[in-house]
């Protein structure tokens, strides 16, 4: 029977998960992706990635530190946030959040500490007064360094990075599982969701690294490490193909099964998500960078300037693609009424507590933190060299 009109359950007028919940998987995606890139170097000895390995690791921490901010801003009772670890209900997928997040944080912090220990000792030796005491505290009171210690530190970093890869996949795959396991929601409920989330995380992680790496080098008028950039661009090309294909296969299988679910999702894609999903996420921001990265990966450019510019534009587009993907999943899923008879509306306010300005600030802060960190420990060598 054909439904006419647009019926939603009366409580569905309110969208429960706002743009804040769009930002959370977006930020943790970059955390997991950047971490995995740094681990490629440490664990799999990809020497070409050495240039960005540390930078990737620190970026991961910068994003990780702010990943919970949108969640806390969204919680109805943020003062009770720690209940998630104090009284976890283990039948809930969400109850693992606090533990997975903390465990991952410990691994990243330890890995950074071991990677930067020698630099910290050098800084300690040069510093005076209060700064010296701070370095002493950060070094936990042990300022001895020798080749043997360096060798052990390096090995520890490899072990931590090795552990970190599955944990990063769990951290982000689990966010996908939070959505994929909701049987009440036809747009979310799919076992593919957590795999899609892992691959899109790697895409966003690689994109943010390429974006920042090139941007910083352009700003400082320095030459990029072409081998490193080429490798990252190729990885990005490969991972974006997997991520986009998985997502399209998911839609294809729903449409081919042609159940009641498709009857409503078809209207979702043709209607409310037409611009953000079909035109932007898939059309402009997936197909165009795919073509661009295919060129940069397979074609021998005479000018690396042009090639690098194309790679940089692709990374920006893919960063936006993943943001739109998060939006289309989180918001798109909530637009569908569980009555299967209509769609609700959502647009975040500009100045609201969970509005666009706040969202922009939350995204911006990790970049500012990275900038400050670079002031103390330059990621790509000294500025004036």
């Amino acid at each position, binding site marked *: *029977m*054909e*439904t*006419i*009109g647009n*019926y*939603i*359950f*009366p*409580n*569905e*007028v*309110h969208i*429960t*998960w706002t743009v804040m919940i769009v930002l959370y998987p977006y930020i943790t995606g970059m955390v997991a992706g950047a971490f995995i890139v740094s681990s490629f170097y440490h664990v799999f000895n990809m020497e070409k990635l050495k240039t960005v390995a540390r930078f990737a690791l620190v970026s991961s921490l910068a994003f990780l530190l702010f990943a919970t901010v949108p969640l806390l801003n*969204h*919680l*109805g*009772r*943020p003062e*009770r*946030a720690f*209940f*998630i670890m104090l*009284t*976890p*209900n283990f*039948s*809930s*997928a*969400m*109850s693992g*959040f606090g533990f997975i997040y903390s465990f991952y944080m410990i691994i990243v912090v330890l890995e950074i500490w071991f990677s930067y220990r020698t630099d910290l000792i050098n800084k300690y030796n040069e510093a005076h007064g209060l700064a010296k005491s701070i370095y002493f505290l950060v070094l936990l009171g042990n300022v001895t360094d020798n080749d043997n210690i360096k060798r052990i530190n390096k090995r520890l970093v490899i072990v931590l990075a090795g552990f970190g890869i599955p944990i990063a996949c769990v951290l982000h795959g689990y966010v996908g599982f*939070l959505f994929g396991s*909701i*049987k*009440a*929601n036809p747009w979310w409920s799919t076992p593919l969701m957590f795999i899609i989330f892992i691959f899109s995380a790697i895409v966003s992680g690689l994109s943010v690294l390429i974006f920042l790496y090139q941007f910083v080098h352009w700003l400082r008028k320095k030459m990029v490490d072409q081998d490193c950039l080429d490798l990252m661009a190729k990885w990005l090309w490969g991972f974006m193909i997997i991520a986009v294909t998985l997502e399209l296969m998911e839609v294809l299988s729903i449409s081919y099964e042609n159940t009641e679910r498709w009857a409503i999702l078809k209207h979702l894609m043709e209607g409310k998500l037409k611009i953000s999903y079909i035109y932007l996420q898939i059309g402009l921001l997936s197909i165009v960078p795919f073509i661009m990265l295919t060129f940069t990966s397979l074609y021998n450019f005479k000018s690396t300037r042009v090639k690098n510019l194309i790679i940089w534009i692709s990374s920006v587009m893919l960063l936006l693609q993943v943001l739109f993907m998060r939006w289309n999943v989180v918001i798109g899923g*909530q637009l569908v*009424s*569980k*009555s*299967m*008879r209509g769609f609700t509306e959502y647009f975040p306010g500009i100045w609201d507590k969970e509005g666009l300005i706040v969202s922009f600030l939350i995204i911006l802060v990790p970049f500012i933190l990275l900038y400050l960190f670079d002031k103390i420990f330059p990621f790509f060598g000294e500025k004036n060299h």
Partner: protein
Amino acid sequence: MEKFERRQFIKLSLIGTAGVLVGSFFGFAKTETDIEVNSYEDLLKFDWGYIVDTTRCIGCGSCVRACKVENNVPDTYFRTWVERYEITKDEEVEVDSPNGAIEGFDKDNSQSSDIVKAFFVPKLCNHCYDSPCTQVCPVGAAYKSPDNVILIDQKHCVGCGYCVQACPYGSRYIDEHRGVADKCTLCYHRIHKGLAPACVNSCPRSARIYGNLKDPNSKINKILHQRRYGLLKPDLGTNPKCYYIGLDKEVK
């Protein structure tokens, strides 16, 4: 003498009628069982269930109003609501529930003059045996009481909204003023005093019936043994215990 008898007759008839009216009022108002709950074990004697008889509902919205007053439900949020279904001879379905039908249905929804079937369906929390909302609550604030009513510990709820997403029936909401999840409690504060839930109490057509599923002689069990009923979204495996008599396939 004759005149006196006539007067006497009228007087007696009036008193008699008044007596029947008053008596029936107490009779109907009487709850099904005398309830005494003093301990945890007493609670285990109950398993509260609910029947919605869609063939009796007239869409007056009394239940929605009674619920709002009894439970201080904020505007634009609903613990219960009533849906109107209108089906034309071309098998087109039109559904509406203006403001949850708190004022009933004063305007026609369908523009079609070919409506062949129309009916009302009251909705509320289904208090599922396998409730997805209690499964997904990360802090255990959503829970099932010993007498199988799905409740929320609002002093413990963090307001994450995961339960709202997990409920397939749209029965839950985050009360933005208090920052916690809220939903129908089956008027838990009333049922253990032997009082009917506000919606049941206010229904002029007895379209809403509640009772103890563990009591083989309860009214709810008698009806469930006699009538054919359906469940909402049974394929999701939530095992709801809100039983819908005369459920149409269009109702989801």
